[in-house]
C-alpha cells in the first residue's frame, strides 16, 4: 500500500482548510488593514503544501519546476503588493504616510509628539 495518496490528501486538506479559514477572516474582520493580513498564510503555508503534494504525485519535471516558480513568485510578489496596498490605504486615509501629531504612537510620543489613536485600536 502506498502512502502517497493519503499524504497528498492530508496536505491538500490542510492547505484548502487554511485558505477557507483565511477567507472567513477576510470577511469578518473590521477594517481593510486587518483583512490584508490574511493572504500571507495562504501564500506561505497553503502554497508550499500544495507544491509538496505536486512533488509527491507528479514525476513530470515541468510540473515541479512550474509549481516551485509559482510559489516563489507568489511569495515575493504578495509581500510587496500587501505592503504597497497598506501604504496606499494609509496615505489615502491620513493624507500622509509618516506618523502624524494626531496619532498616539508611543515611540513617537517619547520624542515629544502626542496625538489620537487611529483605527480604533490600541497602540503598542
Amino acid at each position, binding site marked *: 500500500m502506498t502512502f502517497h*495518496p493519503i499524504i*497528498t*490528501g492530508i496536505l*491538500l*486538506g490542510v*492547505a*484548502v482548510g487554511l*485558505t*477557507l479559514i*483565511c*477567507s*472567513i477572516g*477576510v*470577511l469578518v474582520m473590521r*477594517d*481593510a488593514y486587518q*483583512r*490584508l493580513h*490574511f*493572504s500571507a498564510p*495562504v*501564500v506561505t503555508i*497553503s*502554497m508550499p503544501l*500544495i507544491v509538496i*503534494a*505536486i512533488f509527491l*504525485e*507528479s514525476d*513530470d519535471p*515541468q*510540473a515541479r519546476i*512550474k*509549481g516551485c*516558480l*509559482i510559489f516563489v*513568485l*507568489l511569495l515575493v*510578489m*504578495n509581500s*510587496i*503588493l*500587501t505592503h*504597497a*496596498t497598506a*501604504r*496606499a*490605504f494609509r*496615505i*489615502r486615509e491620513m493624507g500622509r504616510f509618516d506618523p502624524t501629531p494626531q496619532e498616539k504612537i508611543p515611540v513617537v510620543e517619547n520624542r515629544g509628539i502626542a496625538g489620537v489613536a487611529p483605527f480604533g485600536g490600541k497602540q503598542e
Partner: protein
Amino acid sequence: MIVQMNVWLWSALALQFALIPCLIVSFRGDVADRLVGLEFSSVVVTIELLLLAQGFNHPSFYDLSLTLVLLSFGGGMVFARFVQRWL
C-alpha cells in the same frame, strides 16, 4: 475528455467556497475593502488553477496560474496607486 474525480479536483471544488467571502467583501465594502477582496481572490484563483492543472493532469495548464500571478501583481499595484491618489 472524461476525467475521474480525484483528490485534486475535490480540493479545487472545496476551494471555490473561499471565493464567496471575497465576493461579499468586494460587493459590500468601501474602496479599500474591495481592493483587499480582489487581491485575496487573485491568490485563491491562482491556487485553484494549480489544483485544476494537476487534477486534469495537464502540466501546460500551469502557465495559466503563472500568468495570473504576474498579472495580478501588476494589476494590484495599479489599483493601489489609484486608491492612494484618486479614489
